[in-house]
């Protein structure tokens, strides 16, 4: 069913969009076009995704986290209870919470599941965190999204290293991550442990995704067997953080292996991508401190760092395709560069401070944006994930103008037919099943 595709990245760019709230600018919800008051309705998300799907964007990612955005200063449960025990007055409202930014988020995987039947060809990549979640639930929910979307599911893997998320779940004490270390790109034992746990979650997911072979359901009336149980496998995963027996409750999904993506700002996280992911989002050419270890790094240098991480992880030797390197770019577009800069300035003024982001912020005309993207391609970047400062304004400009401009320059392929698998969008070959391969090898050895 899946068209045959190449192991090597395509020479055409992959173009996606990152959706989050009213857009990536803190004042996006104040934009006249914004429908932020309906942010928590199905119609809001349907409206946006249909724009992206009809334009032929390759994928959309959906941000998520198991905590509120601007609520940072809540005490841990321990501290809260201690304050209560000491007779302090109840303090249930966060003193640092901001009223002037969008707050609250719906679950990204469920939002993508709702949007799947309403779209035809766009890849749907929800953020699903690994730190406090059950790998079995994460893996089977993603498989279900792959069934509902008929092969268009992806996963943006994310960890939770903050104390607010820890307090939301309680009990489980996680290693402390020193933010200063992470921003400076220095080794951090706490971060290492969370990344190792994430790598195990990804490995469990991949094993579960293969635990049913494609032809496991036989419906053989003569023997009374629905399944050929020799083609349904326990995974018997024993990691250093947890164990999972398997098999999955979900049969192998249309793509078999769902593309795994993650956002990386540092060689340490590139290394996780090299073992766990198919696609890595990177943040070149950003002088903002929010870019962390990637601050001020050129696209060419980031590509080199990622390829080095791949080489030292032995990725190629394990038969895995090279990581698809997708550069993140925050975009404020308009008819001319000046108008775009003005628009961004107006949003900054509404927010009361200049917009700062972990990814480069670009304000300019559509041709200027296309020229930047073209240059990144020549540096070895495989695609771009556009983060619109405001939706639907910038999403419409991406759909109606930027994508046609990139097509006119021959950088992006013509619109694809309905039902294309997300793996194909990333030029990933159909995924072989590890368990099926294992059986074949055993037979060969026995013969």
């Amino acid at each position: 069913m899946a068209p045959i595709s190449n192991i090597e990245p395509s020479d055409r760019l992959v173009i996606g969009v990152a959706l989050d709230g009213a857009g990536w600018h803190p004042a996006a919800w104040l934009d006249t076009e914004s429908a932020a008051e309906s942010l928590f309705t199905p119609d809001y998300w349907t409206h946006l995704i249909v724009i992206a799907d009809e334009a032929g964007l390759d994928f959309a990612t959906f941000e998520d986290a198991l905590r509120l955005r601007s609520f940072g200063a809540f005490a841990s449960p321990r501290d809260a209870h201690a304050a209560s025990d000491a007779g302090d007055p109840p303090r249930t409202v966060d003193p640092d919470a901001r009223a002037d930014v969008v707050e609250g988020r719906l679950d990204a995987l469920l939002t993508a599941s709702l949007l799947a039947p309403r779209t035809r060809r766009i890849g749907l990549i929800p953020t699903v965190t690994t730190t406090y979640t059950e790998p079995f639930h994460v893996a089977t929910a993603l498989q279900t999204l792959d069934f509902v979307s008929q092969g268009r599911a992806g996963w943006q893997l994310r960890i939770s290293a903050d104390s607010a998320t820890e307090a939301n779940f309680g009990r489980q004490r996680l290693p402390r991550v020193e933010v200063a270390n992470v921003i400076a790109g220095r080794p951090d034992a706490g971060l290492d442990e969370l990344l190792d746990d994430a790598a195990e979650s990804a490995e469990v997911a991949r094993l579960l995704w293969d635990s049913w072979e494609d032809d496991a359901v036989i419906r053989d009336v003569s023997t009374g067997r629905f399944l050929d149980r020799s083609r349904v496998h326990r995974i018997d995963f024993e990691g250093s953080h947890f164990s999972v027996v398997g098999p999955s409750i979900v049969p192998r999904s249309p793509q078999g292996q769902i593309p795994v993506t993650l956002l990386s700002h540092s060689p340490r996280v590139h290394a996780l991508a090299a073992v766990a992911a198919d696609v890595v989002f990177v943040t070149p050419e950003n002088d903002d401190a929010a870019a962390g270890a990637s601050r001020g790094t050129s696209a060419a240098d980031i590509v080199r760092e990622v390829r080095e991480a791949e080489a030292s992880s032995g990725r190629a030797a394990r038969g895995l395709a090279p990581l698809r390197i997708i550069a993140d770019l925050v975009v404020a577009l308009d008819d001319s560069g000046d108008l775009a800069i003005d628009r961004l300035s107006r949003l900054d003024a509404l927010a009361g401070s200049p917009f700062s982001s972990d990814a480069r912020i670009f304000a300019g005309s559509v041709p200027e944006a296309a020229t930047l993207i073209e240059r990144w391609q020549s540096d070895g970047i495989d695609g771009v994930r556009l983060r619109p400062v405001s939706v639907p304004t910038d999403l419409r400009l991406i759909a109606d103008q930027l994508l046609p401009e990139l097509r006119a320059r021959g950088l992006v392929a013509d619109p694809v037919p309905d039902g294309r698998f997300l793996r194909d969008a990333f030029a990933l070959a159909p995924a072989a099943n590890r368990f099926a391969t294992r059986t074949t090898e055993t037979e060969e050895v026995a013969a």
Partner: protein
Amino acid sequence: MTIATPHGSARRQVHLVAHFPGVNSHTIWSAPESGSQIDFSSFAHFARTAERGLFDYVFLAEGLRVREHGGQIHDLDVAGRPATLAILAGMASVTRNIGLVGTLSSTFNEPYELARQLATLDHLSNGRAGWNVVTTSDAFHGANFRRGAFLPYEERYRRAEEFVTLAKRLWDSWDADAILADRAGRRFADPERIHRVSHRGPQFDVAATSTVPRSPQRYPVIVQAGDSPAGRDFAAANAEVIFSRHTAFEEGQAFYRDVKGRLAGAGRGEDSLLILPGASFALGDTEDEARERARHISLAQTSPQTAIAWVEAIWGQELPGLDPDGALPEIDPSDGDQRQGQVSTNVQNRVARAAQLRERARTEGLTLRQLVAAETAKIEFIGTPAAVASEIDRYVQGRAADGFVLVPHITPTGLDEFVDRVVPLLQERGVFRTSYGADPETGANPTLRHTLGLPAPQGPSDAYAVDFQPDVPADAHLEGAAA
């Protein structure tokens, strides 16, 4: 008490639920018309059919581990199913009015995550979400989860109780009017109306605020299926619907009286809880034809291999050479786990069960396969559409049930005939809705709780609260206390 209905009649109204065919021997996969158990098209067809029939909600069971028999994957029944919440979100996408209820374990989930997922589903479906709260405690299922089998059997309802209490407080952590979207005043949300929930109990210890604003129904409709005394108490305190197994008329009446009698003690009115037994059906143009179809269904549900596997599960061991057309084993059951996660592990229960089975086979002159068919392939409603409609009505008017959870035996078309032939007759009798009653002006769909005719739900209990009481709308207090 009777409820005046929009149709002007005083007859008690029937509620109907569509149970997606399960992963068990009741679901016939060998029939030519049997379709995919996993493709989304099957779930879309099923949900749309139930909505066409104006059912209250579609219902899904949950899979936490593929069933095993004798230490191997059980291969005789339909296997493989989607994750509950994601498929419900997909079904919400292709329907407009029908409720969406999923089974989710309070053992192998954390309140913070599950509460936000359910609240998300309630937003995405415009208020059509429900949660069938189940408890699990065995090592077999625990082997798929980080925490493993951490929960002693006796504690599973205590965890469920604490789980629901915490979930309700999280669902209340945003006041209903917390979102301002006030552009002129540059205030998107009012931080004063978004609260931290501090909770300290035996199971959970958190200081949390949901990421999801107050959802259309405030809470998803809470469904519960446990039948033990602890389960019934849990239901009386928390549930708005009970998915019951008591389908015989008098037994149903007794269960109905028992559970509804417990509501007053929980400060609730009789109409705040619906009792919906699970039931399957076989229809025919004549009574004879319906009986013939029922026989055909039972036989298809009980292959020789399925009959032997069922006996082995109760006996807790392999029984080589057992003849499906012969008698039950002479030996007594052991406490082995022949089919994991399906049968009581208490050996005394099993020996008693074996004696009961032998007695039935002897008095009714049944072979092993016939006995298993009689025991498992039970079909509650057999008859013409008129007879089945009449029987359903009798149960509801006689307070043996408030309606039924219908379990078809064919995926995905097993409900079609019921919708086409029985639903119109229930409507003619004046005991089933003729529309969902969407808002005529806005076209807005009714919430699931509205479709079920349930009052606003009770707020969380005060147990475990450390320093925060949610702002509960005054009318909710009144309705909750009107019992």
